[in-house]
């Protein structure tokens, strides 16, 4: 029950439109638009849930209550925050590069949203089932770097510039182990399509066959989303708020929004590649596939938040040294061992 609810809605919409005499091309276009708007609404709802969840978890870990005044258990706090952010003045300092300054917060949300279009959120539930999905995800994600840099540069403030240069260095460096860690899985499955990668985990999840890759991916993923242990980009005690220093109101709110969405993407990707995506463990198929996906994704997000509120921030030299001297060699060794293992297992006939 409930397994085909979203796929069913899409099929129903298509049937209604074709019976109303809408040509196929327009039918497809409208359906795609509906899918993408659904993704956008989904992302926004998730942002509100995550905002609340993050603060409650932070409160729990730090032995305090977190937001609990607005609505029952503080559940309406995100709405109140959005209202506050929308109501604030957009203050534009005198010496900023105005067009770039206002353009970058608008664009920062585009790459994460583009990635969401290809994530399979359940069985047959990718808005666009792209043949090179994993590669597409990394290509689009690499665009966030220059947007964040532009935000810091256009602020014309030395703290912003330091923060944005840190962002560039950190995101470019940690992209390397992030991609290399997934190569082992791609070698085993022989495909870049996310749905095929999920289906290849029917017998065993890749978190068990590629545990080191999963760890590297997790660490590099935290760094890619600029969250604490790796939040040097907006290290408050050092550089005020990094690239976001001069932003106010909604222009500021777009950056945390994009950060939360990238966190959802990193969690969703680790679910798809390492935790079996929408596949049900122990054959518990009475829970629909999309619900499994969200359960796994939220477990990953919870671990992200747990790490954030447990560990202190690391230094810049430690950040770079850890990446280039530990993560990248480990990821390369993992690829090598995976390659050798594939040939050995083929030779003794355990795996074809």
């Amino acid at each position, binding site marked *: 029950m409930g397994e085909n609810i979203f796929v069913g809605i899409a099929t129903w919409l298509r049937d209604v439109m074709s019976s109303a005499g809408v040509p196929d091309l327009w039918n497809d276009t409208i359906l795609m638009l509906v899918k993408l708007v659904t993704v956008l609404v989904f992302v926004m709802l998730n942002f509100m849930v995550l905002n609340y969840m993050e603060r409650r978890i932070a409160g729990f870990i730090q032995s305090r209550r977190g937001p609990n005044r607005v609505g029952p258990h503080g559940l309406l706090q995100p709405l109140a925050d959005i209202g506050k952010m929308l109501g604030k003045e957009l203050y534009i300092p005198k010496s900023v590069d105005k067009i*770039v300054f206002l353009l970058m917060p608008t664009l920062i949300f585009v790459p994460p949203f583009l990635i969401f279009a290809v994530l399979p959120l359940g069985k047959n539930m990718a808005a666009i089932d792209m043949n090179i999905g994993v590669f597409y995800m990394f*290509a689009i994600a*690499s*665009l966030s770097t*220059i947007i964040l840099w*532009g935000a810091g*540069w256009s602020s014309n403030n030395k703290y912003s510039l330091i923060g944005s240069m840190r962002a560039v260095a950190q995101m470019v460096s940690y992209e390397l182990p992030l991609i290399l860690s997934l190569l082992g899985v791609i070698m085993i499955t022989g495909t870049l399509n996310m749905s095929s990668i999920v289906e290849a985990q029917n017998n065993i999840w890749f978190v068990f066959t590629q545990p080191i890759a999963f760890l590297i991916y997790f660490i590099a993923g935290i760094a890619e989303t600029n969250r604490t242990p790796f939040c040097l980009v907006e290290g408050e005690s050092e550089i005020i708020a990094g690239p976001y220093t001069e932003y106010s109101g909604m222009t500021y709110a777009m950056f945390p929004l994009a950060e939360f969405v990238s966190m959802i993407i990193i969690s969703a990707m680790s679910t798809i590649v390492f935790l079996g995506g929408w596949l049900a463990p122990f054959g518990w198929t009475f829970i629909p596939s999309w619900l499994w996906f969200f359960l796994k994704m939220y477990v990953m997000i919870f671990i992200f938040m747990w790490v954030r509120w447990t560990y202190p921030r690391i230094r810049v030299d430690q950040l770079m040294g850890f990446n280039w001297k530990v993560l990248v060699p480990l990821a390369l060794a993992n690829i090598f061992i995976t390659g050798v293992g594939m040939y050995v297992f083929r030779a003794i006939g355990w795996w074809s």
Partner: protein
Amino acid sequence: MELLNSISWVAVSFHTLAAVVVISALLVVFSRNIVHSVFWLAACFISLAGVFMTLNADFVAMVQVMVYAGAVCIMVVFAIMLIRRRDMGDTNLFNGQTVAAAGVVALVIMLSGFLSFKSGVVVPPGPVPVNQVDSIATAMLTKYVIPFEVAALLLLVALIGAIFLAKEVKADADSDS
């Protein structure tokens, strides 16, 4: 409705993207602020990826986004920041070398035209294969393995050279102080 169905949407998207490519490429040259040039360069690269997409070359389009819009623009950013001036207002100005520039541009266009005419690559008829990554990988690791490895070695040499240069500067700065 009849009119809308008669339009070739691929042609529409191609011409739109081509216009964006040309305009943003011109703006790279005409921007007076070199940082704005970098943003226009990124826009140019991304819309060029769109042109590849209209040709069903998804993989090449994504390489374009990742390598050019993602990496090359960041390299340019680093270069700009290393030679940064206090005022970025007039950092991308024209100089008087019009004749030399015209000569070089004409030579490059003629050379690329000549080479693409001479290469004699015939596009096979029929639809584009869905799975292009496999064939690209096979070609790269069998027929073109030596050029591929040479390119990789070249990049490695450049990397070692960059690290060496960076170390050298640091040693000098230490001895001065």
